[in-house]
C-alpha cells in the first residue's frame, strides 16, 4: 500500500492548432484521495495521517494595535486555543508571539512536544497570558517559525500567521529575504484582522508559501477560520509535492498557474527537474482535495497533420528516496487546417482564463479606484462584474456591488467615488478565489 494519497489525473485541452499557432493551453485537474481510504480532510480527533508527522506553528500578532479594539486580541487568543484543540493527537506544535521580534511562547523548553491533554492545556495557558505591546516584523516571525521547523525536516510543516497591521518594524527587503528563506521549508496561510493591514503584503507571503490570504472583518469569525485552517493542515498526507513539467526542446513554458481553488502563479517558482527539459513547480502539501492548474507552453509550430507532445505533466512527491511519481498526463498539439477544430476553445481552459482575467480586472479596478481614476475603475470593475456573473461567482458579484453603483443616466455599472476600505479589501482578497469549472 502506498504511503501517499491516490491521485487522479485529468487533462483538458483543445489539442488542435491552426497552421503556425504556437500556444498550447491545458488545464490539469488533480484529485487526491486519502491512501487510508478517508474522505475529505479529517476533522478534530481524526487518526494521524499515514504515519507522517505534522508540525503546526501558530503566529499571533502581538503588536500594540491588537488592543485597539480589544476584541482583536481577545479573538486572537480564543482562535488560537480552538486551533490547539483542533490539532490531531500527536502533532507537534508551537505558538509564536509576533512583534518587532518573535518569541516562542509555547513550548518554552526548546524542543517541540506532541499534542496531548497536558501539552494542549499548557499551551492554552501560555496563550491566555499573551498581551499586545510592540511593533510588527513579519520577516522575523517567519524566521522564527523556520527555526522551529528545522528540527523536523521530513514532517508536513504549516504555519498560520495572523496580523492586524503593516510590516513596519523592518524593511521590505528584510521581509522578502525571510520569505525567500521559507520557500520549500514550510507552507503558510495568512489572515488579516481589521482594516489596517495590506492585502498585497500578506498575499506576497501566502503566494510564496503556497497558502491562502483571508480577511477577518468580524473578530467573532476568527475562531472558526482557525479551526478550518488547522483541520485542513492536519489532513495533509504528503508534504512536498511538485508538478514536474517536461516541455520539448526549444519550447517556452509561458506559465504554470494554480487556478482552483484559488489563483496562484507558480511560474516564478520553477526549479530544475530531473533533466534539462523538465522543471519542478512546488504545490506544497496534499490531503484529500482537488486542485487545478493552467499550463501554457509555446512550441515551434509543426506541419499540418503533425502531432507533437507539447508537455508531459507529472506529479512527484519529493521524499527521502528522491522523488516518487504519483501520476502523469500529456499535453498534445496537433496542427490542422480544419478551423472547426482549431478554433474550438476547451471549456475548462476558457473558464479559468476568465477567472484569471476577473481577478486581474478586480485588482486593477480597485487600484484605479483608490487612486481616484474612476474611468479606469469603472471599465475594469465593470468587466469583472460581467465575468463574475457569467461564471456564477456569487460572492464576488455581491462584493463588486459594494464598490460599484448603477449610473442612473446610463443604467450601467460604474465605480463608486468613495468606498468602504474594508469592502475594497474584502473584494481584493476574494478576487483570487475561483469557482470550479463545470464538467465538460
Amino acid at each position, binding site marked *: 500500500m502506498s504511503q501517499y494519497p491516490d491521485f487522479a489525473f485529468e487533462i483538458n485541452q483543445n489539442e488542435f492548432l491552426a497552421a503556425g499557432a504556437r500556444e498550447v493551453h491545458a488545464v490539469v485537474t488533480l484529485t487526491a484521495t486519502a491512501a487510508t481510504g478517508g474522505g475529505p480532510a479529517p476533522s478534530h480527533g481524526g487518526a494521524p495521517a499515514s504515519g507522517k508527522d505534522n508540525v503546526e506553528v501558530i503566529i499571533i500578532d502581538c503588536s500594540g494595535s491588537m488592543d485597539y479594539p480589544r476584541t482583536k486580541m481577545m479573538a486572537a487568543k480564543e482562535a488560537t486555543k480552538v486551533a490547539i484543540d483542533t490539532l490531531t493527537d500527536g502533532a507537534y506544535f508551537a505558538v509564536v508571539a509576533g512583534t518587532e521580534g518573535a518569541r516562542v511562547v509555547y513550548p518554552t523548553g526548546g524542543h517541540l512536544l506532541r499534542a496531548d491533554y497536558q501539552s494542549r492545556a499548557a499551551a492554552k495557558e501560555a496563550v491566555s497570558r499573551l498581551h499586545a505591546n510592540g511593533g510588527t516584523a513579519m520577516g522575523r516571525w517567519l524566521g522564527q517559525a523556520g527555526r522551529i521547523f528545522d528540527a523536523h525536516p521530513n514532517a508536513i510543516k504549516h504555519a498560520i500567521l495572523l496580523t492586524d497591521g503593516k510590516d513596519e518594524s523592518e524593511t521590505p527587503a528584510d521581509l522578502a529575504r525571510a520569505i525567500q528563506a521559507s520557500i520549500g521549508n514550510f507552507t503558510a496561510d495568512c489572515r488579516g484582522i481589521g482594516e489596517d493591514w495590506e492585502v498585497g503584503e500578506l498575499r506576497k507571503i501566502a503566494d510564496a508559501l503556497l497558502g491562502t490570504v483571508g480577511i477577518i472583518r468580524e473578530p467573532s469569525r476568527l475562531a472558526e477560520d482557525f479551526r478550518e485552517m488547522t483541520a485542513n493542515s492536519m489532513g495533509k498526507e504528503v508534504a512536498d509535492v511538485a508538478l514536474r513539467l517536461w516541455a*520539448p526542446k526549444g519550447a517556452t513554458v509561458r506559465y504554470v498557474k494554480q487556478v482552483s481553488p484559488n489563483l496562484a502563479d507558480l511560474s516564478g517558482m520553477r526549479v530544475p527537474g530531473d533533466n534539462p527539459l523538465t522543471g519542478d513547480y512546488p504545490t506544497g502539501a496534499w490531503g484529500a482535495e482537488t486542485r487545478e492548474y493552467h499550463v501554457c507552453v509555446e512550441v515551434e509550430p509543426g506541419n499540418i497533420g503533425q502531432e507533437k507532445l507539447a508537455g508531459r505533466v507529472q506529479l512527484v512527491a519529493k521524499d527521502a528516496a528522491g522523488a516518487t511519481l504519483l501520476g502523469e498526463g500529456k499535453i498534445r498539439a496537433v496542427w490542422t487546417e480544419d478551423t472547426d477544430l482549431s478554433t474550438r476553445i476547451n471549456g475548462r481552459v476558457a473558464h479559468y482564463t476568465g477567472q484569471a482575467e476577473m481577478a486581474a480586472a478586480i485588482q486593477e479596478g480597485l487600484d484605479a479606484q483608490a487612486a481616484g481614476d474612476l474611468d479606469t475603475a469603472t471599465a475594469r470593475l465593470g468587466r469583472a462584474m460581467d465575468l463574475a456573473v457569467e461564471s456564477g461567482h456569487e460572492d464576488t458579484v455581491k462584493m463588486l456591488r459594494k464598490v460599484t453603483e448603477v449610473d442612473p443616466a446610463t443604467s450601467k455599472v460604474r465605480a463608486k467615488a468613495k468606498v468602504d476600505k474594508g469592502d475594497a479589501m474584502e473584494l481584493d482578497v476574494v478576487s483570487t478565489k475561483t469557482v470550479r469549472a463545470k464538467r465538460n
Partner: protein
Amino acid sequence: MTTETAAQAGGTGAGGPAAGQEADPPMPLQLTCPNCGATDLVMEQGARFCEACGYGVDEPVTGEEEPSAFQGPKPCVSCGGTEIDAEGYCTDCGDLQPRRRDRMEVDLGVVAGISDRGLRHHRNEDSMALRPALGLDGRNLVVAVVCDGVSTSERPDEASAAAVSAAAKLLLTAIAAGTPVGERMPDPEPGPAPAPGPVETAVMELVLPSVPPAGDESAGAAEAAEAAEAAEPSGKAGPADLRLISRHAVAAADQAVSDLARDADHGNPPACTYVSAVVGAEVFVAWLGDSRAYWLDERGTSRALTRDDAEEGSHAIEAWLGADSGAPEPHLIRFTPDGPGVVLVCSDGLWNYVDQAADLAALAMPGAQTDPFGAAARLVQKALDSGGHDNITAVLVPYPVPASAEPSA
C-alpha cells in the same frame, strides 16, 4: 528506337536478351537483405532465405514490416533525437513519430520505393510491394506493385495493403516456379487494337485479354505455379508467362480486397486501384484505375505506359479492385525498352504534381539508374513540396535488371 516488333517481343517471352542488356556486361545481382542489411546476398536458384539472418527472401517487401532487431532504433524524423518514448513521442522535440504506414521506405538496390502519407491526409491509403525474383531460365525479374485505396470506400488502407501483398506474392511465386508449357497464353492476334490504346509505338503492345480461362480466374495461377513447381524437375515448365501471371495477379488482388468486405460497409466495401510492373528483358504492366507506370530515360523517349481508367482531368475512376469491382479485366501492356532507363510505378499523389514523363525523368534521371531509392525520395519530396495533398507512392526499377552471376538456364 528499336525496330523489334510486338510479335517478336511477345514470341520470345522473357527469353532473349534485350538491346539494353547487351550493352552492359552481366553483373551479379546483389541484393540487400531487407531484414539484416547484408549486402552480399547473391540471388541463386532456389535461394529462399538470407544466408546471414535466415529471412525469407521470397516474400514481397512492402515497407510496412516490423523493424527487425538488426536495425537499431530509428532516430527522430524531426530532430534526429535518439530516444523515442513508448508512445512514439521524441523525448527531445516532442514530435510524434510517424506510424509505420505514414512513410514506408524500401531500398533493395535493384528496386526501391517510398510511400508517404503526404501532408493533408490523416493516414496513408497507398501500398506498395516489391522484390526481385529469379526465373526458371536464370534471368532476374523485378516485381513492383502499387495500389491506392479508394478514399470513399471503407478501410482503403487495408484494401491497398491486401492487394499489393496478394499480387506480389503470386507474381514472385509464379516467376520462381515457371509456367507449364501447355498453359502459356497464346500471343495476341495481330489486328486493330481496341481502346484503350495507350501509346502508339512500335515497342509497346496492348496485350489483349484474349483467352481468359473462364471460371478459375483467381486460383488458376497459384495452382499453375504449384503444379509447375512440382513438375519442374521433369522439365515441363518453362519461364513464367508474364502476361498470364500479371492477369492472375490482378485476379488474386481483387479476391484479397473482396475478402475484406463486411456487411457493415454500407455499400462501400474496401476498394483500391492497381498497377504492377514485371521488369525483365521486357516490361509487363497491368493496371486498373488511375495509378500509373512510366518509362523514364535520358534519350527523350520517356513516356507513360498506362492510361487512366478515369475521365480526363477527373479522379472518378471507372475500374478498381474490391467486392463491388465486377471482376474487371485489367489493361495489360508489354513494353520493350531500347536502352537503359527506369520503370516508375506510382500513385496519383505523385503524378497530380508532375504529370509529364519528361518532367518526371528530369527529376529522377540519371541518378535513378544507380540509386533508385534516392530518386524515389526526390520524386516524393517534389510532391510534398508541391502541397502533398494526397498519399504519394513511387517505386523505381532500373533497367536493365542486372543478370545473375551464373545464369542457370
